[in-house]
């Protein structure tokens, strides 16, 4: 139970951070396109909505990582459902919190979602790689000779 809670908190922080990075990219893109950066600001409701979205997006992740994933195909199926579930959450929350109003805004949110999803997985895989290296190095010191 504690492990699940820890995973949920980790994911909430990582996803929320990634969404903030996405918003930052959005601001930079609009600035490059000629918008006045002074008009680009975040309200407390937007900040709260990002954290709330991060927290809710972390819930499907708890079902993604279970101990019964012996088959890779089983996990990949769950990963596809996870992606669709998160996309639905972001789209609905984006609509409720007015992250987008028109179709171009929705397309932008979609692009940002793809980038955030890829970013979170890239970071996760990087952590895995780093842990592998540490464990393999430690195993080198204790391994039996055969």
């Amino acid at each position, binding site marked *: 139970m504690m492990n699940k809670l820890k995973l949920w908190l980790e994911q909430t922080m990582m996803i929320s951070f990634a969404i903030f990075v996405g918003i930052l990219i959005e601001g930079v893109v609009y600035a490059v396109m000629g918008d006045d950066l002074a008009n680009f600001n975040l309200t407390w409701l937007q900040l709260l909505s990002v954290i709330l979205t991060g927290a809710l997006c972390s819930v499907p992740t708890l079902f993604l990582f279970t*101990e019964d*994933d012996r088959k890779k195909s089983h*996990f990949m199926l769950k990963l596809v459902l996870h992606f669709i579930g998160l996309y639905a959450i972001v789209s609905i929350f984006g609509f409720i919190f007015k992250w987008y109003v028109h179709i171009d805004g929705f397309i932008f949110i979609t692009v940002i979602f793809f980038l955030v999803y890829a970013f979170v997985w890239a970071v996760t895989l990087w952590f895995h790689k780093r*842990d*592998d290296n540490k464990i393999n190095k430690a195993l080198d010191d*204790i391994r039996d000779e055969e």
Partner: protein
Amino acid sequence: MQVLFEKVNSKEEEQAVIKAVEITDEISGAIELLEGDSKSFAVSKDDKVYIIKASAVYYIESVDKKTFVYTKQGCYDCKYRLYELETLLGGYFMRCSKSMIINLKKVRTVKSQISGRIDATLLNDEVVVISRGYVKEVKRRLGI
């Protein structure tokens, strides 16, 4: 604690003497590690009973409430339950899933999967799975 190392010429002369006020958890752990290789237990195969050294074990698996011990020489039945062997062997023997104990000294390399589990390739080229829930304990045992 001061640690002294003295080189000896043969395996028979090897010994470790620990001088301490009391046996702490750290000292118990050190004793477990040092004794690990010399521990042995009974297993059976084809109605014959064998005594095998812990250092010969690659992994131990429980299937349908039966315990099987895997070594380079093959697979043996064992009367002990997994939790008993876990306590008996200690050291670098640890649970890697609900139904398996792995000898970390027999792991050649590990590779994380996207699902968070770790595939451990043993010295006999068999691959066993370290479940997500046990990865933290693996790191702790290895001092990471």
